[in-house]
């Protein structure tokens, strides 16, 4: 897509949004929004610009965040290492999503995770704490203490029927997953769906008591992200999720209202361990698709691409 086309799309988006907001009733607005935008937006460029462009391709942040709403952003920031290792989301991507949420008029935005490695060092070295603080102080946290979590049932679960969820997540109007694209020795890849494991207190039962694949899908029936912005500015192609591994640099960001589709496109777009794979070869994606959580059949989905 060239610059002109890109501007056209953006203009169309603005007009559409304007019409939807001013003229149509809420129900019609929702239908119009769901039908008017491509399923997936892929933008290539510098991390922040690509994140903004990818979200704009699928309707812009106002499609997802309404004024006054509570938003939780879930990046990967639980490893005490810098962006070059590709184990954490790029701080610029997180920052841009945060800015977009505030531009859309969000009432409150939180950037939350539950670290595996040293929480303070992870915040610091990932660069995400500084990036968030430059926008709004005090909203980026590793929630390690049980007081921030509340027990909740997962009504549509087949395996994991309850867990302790971050209270902020249970109370959120909008959840935005902003994972880095990386391989995962157990699950194949760790993207938007898998990343939601950072929003509960006891993720270990998902390994020990249940099938990891089934419980990832269970978890997402409860806290499925409303928007997935996958940071493929760098892709940890091998050795994930903790590295060290081979880091590819596609310089892309993939956005979708359907996290299954976003994950599926990410799987199909890049090489994992030197080879290409289909989304169905990641078993929890196949399961999520089968259980109706989203679509992994990207060949049937509308994908819009742009380069900045």
């Amino acid at each position, binding site marked *: 897509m060239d610059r002109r086309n890109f501007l056209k799309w953006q203009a169309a988006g603005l007009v559409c949004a304007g019409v939807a907001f001013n003229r149509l009733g809420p129900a019609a607005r929702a239908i119009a929004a769901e039908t008017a935008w491509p399923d997936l937006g892929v933008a290539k460029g510098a991390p922040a610009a690509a994140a903004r462009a990818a979200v704009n391709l699928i309707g812009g942040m106002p499609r997802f965040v309404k004024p006054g709403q509570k938003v939780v952003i879930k990046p990967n920031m639980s490893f005490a290492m810098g962006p070059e290792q590709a184990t954490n989301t790029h701080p610029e991507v997180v920052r841009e999503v945060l800015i977009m949420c505030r531009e859309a008029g969000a009432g409150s935005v939180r950037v939350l995770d539950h670290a595996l490695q040293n929480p303070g060092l992870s915040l610091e070295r990932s660069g995400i704490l500084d990036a968030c603080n430059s926008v*709004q102080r005090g909203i980026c946290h590793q929630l390690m203490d049980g007081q921030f979590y509340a027990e909740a049932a997962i009504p549509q679960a087949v395996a994991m029927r309850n867990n302790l969820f971050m209270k902020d997540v249970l109370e959120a109007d909008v959840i935005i997953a902003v994972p880095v694209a990386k391989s*995962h020795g157990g699950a194949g890849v760790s993207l938007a769906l898998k990343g939601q494991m950072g929003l509960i207190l006891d993720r270990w039962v998902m390994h020990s008591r249940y099938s990891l694949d089934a419980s990832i899908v269970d978890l997402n029936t409860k806290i499925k992200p409303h928007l997935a912005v996958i940071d493929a500015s760098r892709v940890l192609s091998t050795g994930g999720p903790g590295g060290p591994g081979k880091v590819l640099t596609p310089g892309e960001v993939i956005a979708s209202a359907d996290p299954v589709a976003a994950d599926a496109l990410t799987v199909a777009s890049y090489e994992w361990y030197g080879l290409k794979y289909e989304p169905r070869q990641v078993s929890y994606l196949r399961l999520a698709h089968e259980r109706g959580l989203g679509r992994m059949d990207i060949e049937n989905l509308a994908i819009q691409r742009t380069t900045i």
Partner: protein
Amino acid sequence: MNGRKNSRPPSPFRRQRIIQALSLLLFFWLLRHMVVTAAEPALPPDLFLRLDPLAAPLLLLTARDWLPEMWPGLAVLGATFLAGRFFCGYICPFGGSLDFCRILLRKLFGTAATRPGKLDPAGRKIKYLLLAALAGTALPGVNLFYWGAPLPLIARFYALLIHPLLLLASNQGLALLGPLLAGMSENWVGLQYLQILPRGYHGLFFLLGFFGLAFGLELFRPRFWCRYLCPAGALLGLCSRRSPLRRRVQECVNCGKCAAICPMSAISQDGRQTGHGECLGCRTCAAVCPVKGIAFSPAGRIKSANSPAALPERRAFLGAAGVGVLVSGATLARALPGLASGAECLRPPGSLPENEFLRRCLRCGACMKICPSNGLQPAWAGAGLPGLFSPLLLPRRGPCEPDCNACGRVCPSQAILRLPLAEKRWAKLGTAAVKAERCLALAEGKRCVVCQEVCPYGAVKLVQASGQGVPVPVVAAERCFGCGYCEKHCPVQAPAIAVYPAGALRLERPDYEMAARAAGLDLVPVSERRPDAPDYDDFGGGGLPPGFTD
């Protein structure tokens, strides 16, 4: 207000209380700075521990080495020859805690509760015999003086018992305040996420019992510990018997007020004789003397004899020392390889070889206080009898952080060497091993790679053999530091991967990098490896990469 009282200069007794309180506050301030995140305070955080007048000389015996870190304790000893037991009266935080505890107890139970007692030589001999026994154990090189060294003891009390209780109270307080903070404006959002994580330690009931007794005995006699039991007090008492700066009686009306009020009961009933080895120089006697006839000066008009019978007889001294030697023999025999289990435990990074380590470790708890993960814990039975209360790493509680060398920085006796981070990185603690019969991947065929996920060194490889449905973890020993991240996070209840001290480096000199490289170790954290050059890759051979399916 009483104008006359106000115009009076502060009495020496008050001055002692003020200095004592300041010393205690400084002790607390330094303990507070015994955390990794704090900027280095102007004074070394372990300053008080190095002041211990018992540990300093006995470490010379047990360590068989000159420890420059401990010179302040020797300086205290030297100064005592001149000025008496000023350390006990003005500086020692144990003594200060006892004094302030007694003031509190008096408030609670009335002034009659604590009677000063008499200059009773019989009971006071105990501390000298304890000193002789501990010196006896130290002579062949066995460190049992941690039972009597007052500063490590009191540091352990505050750092491992009081501090965790305060944290717990703050944690619970924050939880109670939570709803209140949640209602605050977005400008104060950071407050909603204040987290004070509780810490805890093994052996707290021992500390509770020991100090409960020490403080409770204040009801029976003031400074019970100091006058009857403290071997450091005994040593300082021996040094202060001829000190020039001591209690001198210039004028006396035989009223006996000084004898009645002396907190150490170091004055004879007539007020003229002084047990100089017992006197703390607090000058309470000078403050109450109706004729202002008492001075702490090099010379006095009325001859004040040392109270004669405060010391045990020579044969009792020798007997106690002999018992000490016997106990040390028993400890040494118990510490033979195969009987002691300290070497079979995980010690802090940079710990000396086990025997050297035990000779030096003061059991002060500084390393445990500062350990950011709370993984360093006092041994109970875990390190065998010779290793009682010494620090062990319990990874299940908390791993050894790759970028932390705090324990060595605060170890007063350098049982844990002070290593720069670049050197500490090579101070391998042990090696992780997978217990195949418990591992979720190996035993149950489940998708679990948590150990690989959390390993900061990239030492856990995943291997998906052709016959296996799921990738399974394999530890690369040369990459494994033994930090325990895998053991900490293993989702199995009794962890299926655990660190053993196999391959641990315990050196007498800080030459860890050289030794580690000689042993073929490759201990570079993932965060510092060049990302685009994975130097191992077990995946290959046409199968699927870990986690993918057909």
